[in-house]
């Protein structure tokens, strides 16, 4: 096993009253030690579900219906819940979207940090407190000592997200999964938090899976990109390649819609139409109703994710 994390043919379904819907439809990707991967795509594409399925925490009617996930050579998709707890928050940490909702309002920051450490390590409370303090310093929070005894509501959103980053550093994470970690913050803070995350991943040699809508952020922070559409990865490759010479028409559209990607004064491109809901994904390529290049084969056959000329993987019949 050479990869730190390997997701193979992952399929996730939600058991709804009207029947099962497939939210993740057979995706593959890998992550190596210290590598940073971005997952981008429209709302509902399945980015968050992908992130949560790695630590087996998909919300209720959801379940992994096929495929496997390997972490450090172990098939963690077969782990029991108690085995999984030795991974969660310990080897794989998560950062959620809204720092205002992520911390428990009735416990102090110190309490929430110390309990995390003590869930994974046999150490005394005072040792745990010392480590918590050290990590708070690492995320450059002002007056870290005071923070330990404060409650979440006493801190701003940016500070809370720093604290959550500190929590994810507490034990010895190999991977941080950050699900839109800056969406709920204002723009100046967003950049600070992203810088901090990137810097920490570099110094601590941690892998990062950055889930976001924002191709701009991803292109600055990550080395690889997976573009998701309707539960599938439709393009996967080195960030530079994907951003500068995208293959899939959907990726091209996404990049065209980033401010700054077109000449000043020119209209931003926009992908016409909307992503289909999971219950009525069109036959063939899920993107075909919105695609300029659509040909008869696109409505009949699902394109496989395959290597294209520029070295990236893409799922498109037409482009190569």
């Amino acid at each position: 096993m050479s990869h730190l994390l390997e997701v193979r043919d992952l399929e996730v379904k939600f058991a709804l009253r009207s029947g099962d819907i497939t939210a993740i439809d057979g995706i593959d990707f890998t992550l190596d030690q210290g590598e940073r991967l971005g997952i981008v795509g429209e709302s509902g594409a399945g980015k968050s579900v992908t992130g949560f399925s790695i630590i087996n925490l998909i919300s209720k009617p959801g379940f992994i219906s096929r495929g496997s996930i390997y972490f450090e050579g172990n098939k963690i998709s077969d782990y029991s819940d108690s085995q999984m707890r030795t991974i969660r928050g310990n080897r794989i940490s998560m950062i959620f979207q809204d720092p205002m909702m992520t911390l428990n309002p009735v416990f102090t920051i110190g309490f929430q940090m110390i309990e995390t450490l003590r869930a994974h390590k046999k150490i005394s409370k005072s040792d745990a407190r010392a480590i918590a303090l050290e990590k708070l310093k690492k995320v450059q929070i002002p007056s870290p000592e005071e923070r330990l005894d404060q409650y979440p509501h006493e801190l701003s959103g940016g500070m809370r997200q720093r604290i959550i980053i500190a929590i994810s550093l507490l034990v010895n994470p190999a991977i941080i999964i950050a699900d839109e970690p800056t969406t709920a913050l204002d723009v100046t803070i967003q950049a600070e938090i992203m810088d901090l995350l990137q810097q920490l991943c570099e110094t601590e040699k941690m892998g990062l899976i950055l889930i976001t809508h924002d191709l701009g952020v991803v292109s600055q922070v990550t080395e690889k990109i997976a573009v998701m559409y309707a539960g599938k990865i439709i393009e996967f490759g080195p960030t530079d390649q994907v951003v500068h010479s995208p293959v899939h028409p959907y990726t091209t559209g996404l990049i065209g819609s980033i401010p700054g990607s077109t000449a000043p004064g020119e209209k931003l491109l926009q992908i016409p139409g909307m992503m289909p809901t999971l219950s009525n994904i069109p036959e063939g390529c899920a993107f075909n109703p919105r695609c300029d290049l659509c040909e008869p084969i696109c409505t009949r056959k699902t394109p496989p994710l395959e290597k294209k000329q520029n070295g990236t993987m893409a799922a498109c019949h037409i482009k190569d």
Partner: protein
Amino acid sequence: MFAFIIRRILQAVVVMLVISLMGFAIKNNIGDPVRDLVGERVTPAERAKMADDMGLNDPFLIQYLRFIGHAVKGDLGRSFLYNKPNLEVISQHAPATIELLMGTALIIVLISLPLGVQSALQPKSKLARFTMSFSTLGISMPVFLTAILLIYVFAVHLQILPSFGRGETVDLFGNGYWNTGFLTRDGLEHLILPCLSLSSIMLPLFIRLIRSEMMEVLETEYIKYAWAKGLSPARVWMVHAFKNTLLPVVTVFGVQMGITFAFTILTELVFQWQGMGFMFLEAVQRADISLLIAYLVVVASVFVLVNTVVDIVYGFINPTVRIVGTR
């Protein structure tokens, strides 16, 4: 926190003033202290003189201030029915009612917490389903019916529990004021049926409240995050979810115990329980207005006190309230 406590206490004082004013106004209008004192066999002239001596013809405000002045010193007038100071009558009946309420609160807490939490964590289990249907039944059954049913089953039919009075009590402080039923087996047995019927009103409500609060909390982001941190189920449920569940429940508990108190009157009647409710009914029957008003003032003070304490306790468990209070 300090400012918050002061503010709550000031609010409590204002509420008490309003209530005492209402109580006094009633007493002033329908009560007849002269009759309370000497009965009917006195001539109108003598009555008028007595009324004058007692200051009953003074302006309303002066009389009210005098009433407050006495009340603060612990003098709430005399009961002609018992021929004792009202406060003494009330405080002799209070322990019985307090013990009834304590037993009821204990039953509610001991049963609703585990059942509410269990049915939130395993809503599809047999126990949870049973709890839910049983509590539906409990909610729709009036207290007197529950009481009579309990008496029929346990006292009349099975004959294993007493249904009348307080049984054997122990004088707690040796001064005759607090006779407790908690220290003897007989006293405890006498508590069971009245407490069960009294708790039957609030118990289903609390089970449902705890269950729905807990289910809501379990869906929150911070609980999902607690799982993502790798915490054990015991910790996620009993520490993270439980404390957030309790917050609203504590406030509701304070209010509901107030309502439960109102039901003690009925319960005490059914079980011939010599408490404040029993005393109240007697005072109503014999038109002892003075005692009734004293009862009103005492009960209102207790309510205000309990609510204030509950709010302050809530302030301690919920850090966000504290901040609001100190601003």
